[in-house]
C-alpha cells in the first residue's frame, strides 16, 4: 500500500513492476521499462488476464479490456495507470 500523502504517480512504476513480477513469477528479477510483456517476460494469454485483474486489485479500479489488449511493454502499463490514477483509484 502506498503512502496516501505522496503524489499518486510517484510510485506507480514501482508498484506496476511489483505486480508484473508477482503475476509472472519473476521473484526479484528486474523489470525494465522497455521489456515487452509477451516476448521478453514470457507472459501468455492467461497471464495477460491475470495481470489486468492484479492491476485492478492493486490500483482499485476498472481497466477496459480494449485498452488492456494494447499493453505491449511495461512502460505502456505504467503510462496507462499514471494517466488514470486518482484519489479514488483508476478512473
Amino acid at each position: 500500500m502506498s503512502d496516501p500523502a505522496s503524489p499518486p504517480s510517484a510510485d506507480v512504476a514501482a508498484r506496476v513492476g511489483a505486480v508484473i513480477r508477482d503475476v509472472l513469477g519473476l521473484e526479484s528479477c528486474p523489470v525494465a521499462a522497455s521489456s515487452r510483456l509477451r516476448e521478453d517476460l514470457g507472459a501468455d494469454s492467461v497471464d495477460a488476464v491475470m495481470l489486468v485483474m492484479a492491476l485492478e486489485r492493486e490500483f482499485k479500479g476498472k481497466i477496459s479490456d480494449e485498452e488492456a489488449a494494447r499493453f505491449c511493454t511495461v512502460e505502456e502499463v505504467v503510462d496507462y495507470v499514471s494517466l488514470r490514477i486518482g484519489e479514488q483509484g483508476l478512473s
Partner: protein
Amino acid sequence: MSRRRVAVTGIGMVSPTGTTAPECWSACLAGQAAVAPIPDQWRRWSGFQSTVWAPLPTVDFAAAGITPLEAMRLDGAVMLAIVAAREALADAKLEASLVDAKRGIWRLAGIDDERAGVCMGSGGGGITTLIESQNSHLLTPIQPLASRGTPETPDPASDALDTLLASLPKRFNPFAVSMIMPNAVSATLGIRYSLRGPNTTCALACAAGTAAVGQALRSIRGGDTDMVLCGGAEFVGDPFGSVFRAFDTAKTLASVVDRPETANRPFDRGRTGFLLAEGGAAVLVCEEWEHAHRRGARIHAEIVGYGESFDAYSMMIMEPTGRQLSRAIGLSLADAGIAADDVDYVNAHGTGTIVNDDVESAVIEGLFGSRPLVSATKSLTGHCIGASGAIEVAMTALSLRDQKVHGCVNLEDPVRPLNFARKSTDAGLTWAVSQSSAFGGHNAAVVMRRAGP
C-alpha cells in the same frame, strides 16, 4: 500373488470444527459441535424454515501458501482442498519443493509423478462461483439503478439491490469456467503437486468423498498408481444464502424450535433434518503398503474394502427398505474379506433427516446387530456435503489409530437400540466401516483396519 494393500499415511482436514485434522479430531472428541445462527443478511432475501448452520472457522489461506493472486482464480472448495492437501502431504512427510513460481507448481520428493494420482469428491463443484458469476452477469445492466444516498423512507427492495450491487466484483471473473467445473478440485491438486497419474473426480453428492477413497483403493490395488491424494471438498457459503435456501426449501434442514445448540441430532427421535455446513475438505494420502514402508511412513490405518450401489428410486429420498445401502456395505465387507460380526465401529452417514436415519439405523441393525459402536460425525461438524464422506473416513482412520470414538452428540432418545457412542469413548477397534448415502441414490461404504503388520 498377494493383493496390493493400501495405507493411509497422511490426513488433512478443514471443517466447521477446526482448520487442521488434529483440531477437528480434538474438537469432536471433546464433543464441541459447530452450530450458529445463519447470517442476518440472508433474511433480506428470504424467510427460512431453518435458521441454523455450521459455519467454518477463519481459515488462514495465506499460511497454506495460497497467494492473493491465486485466490482470485480459485473457488472456495478448491482453496479448502489445498489447505487440507498441504496438511496431508506434510503429515505423510512428503516434502514439496517449488518448481514453478508463476504457476504455483510444487514437486514431491521421492514420488514417481506418473504413478501418483488424484481422486477428489465434490457435491456442487464451484457452485458459489457459479452464483457469483450469475449475479455479476445479470446485474451488469442494472448498475445504474443503485440508489444515491439514504432514502427518507427505508425501502427493502432498493436496500437489497444496493447490497447486491456493492457485492459485485469489478469484472466478471475471467477464470469462472475453471472455477465452476467440478473437476477443478482434482485438477488443481494435480497441477499444484505435479501428480501425473489418473486424475479423476467423483460427483456422487454426499457420498462423493467416500467414493473417492474407494476409487483410490481400487487404483492402487489394481496397480495403476502407488499413491493417490483422495478425499472431498465443498464450499456452499455464498453471501446470500442461495445454496442454503435450496436445501431449506426442500425441507431437508434442521428446524429449530427452542435450543439451537441441540438442533443437530442424528438418530434421535426428535430430529428434524440436517445441519448444513458452510464447507469443508478432507484429503488423505493413500499409499501402496510397501511403498509406504520403504520410505518409513507412519501408517494411520489401512483401507481394506469398498462397496457401492445405487437406489434407482428417488433423487432426494432414500429407498425405504435400505436394500441398496445394505448391499453396498455388504460388498465392502466382502471386498475386505471380513464378516459383519468382525466390525467394531460404524461411522454412520447419520444426517439427522427423518427418513435417512430411520432407514440407515435399520440397515445397521440388520447387518451388524447391536454389537459395534455407532456414531455420526455430522452430529459435530454439520453436513459438509461432498466433503462429508472423506471427513468421516478420515475420522474413522483416526479412531482406529487412537482407539477412540467420538460421540454422536444430542442423541437422547435413539431411534433404534444400537450401540451408539453418545460421548467420546475409548475402544478396542480393529475393523471399522464408514458409509454414505446421497441425493441421486448413491450408496458407498469403505472398510478400514487398524494399522498392523
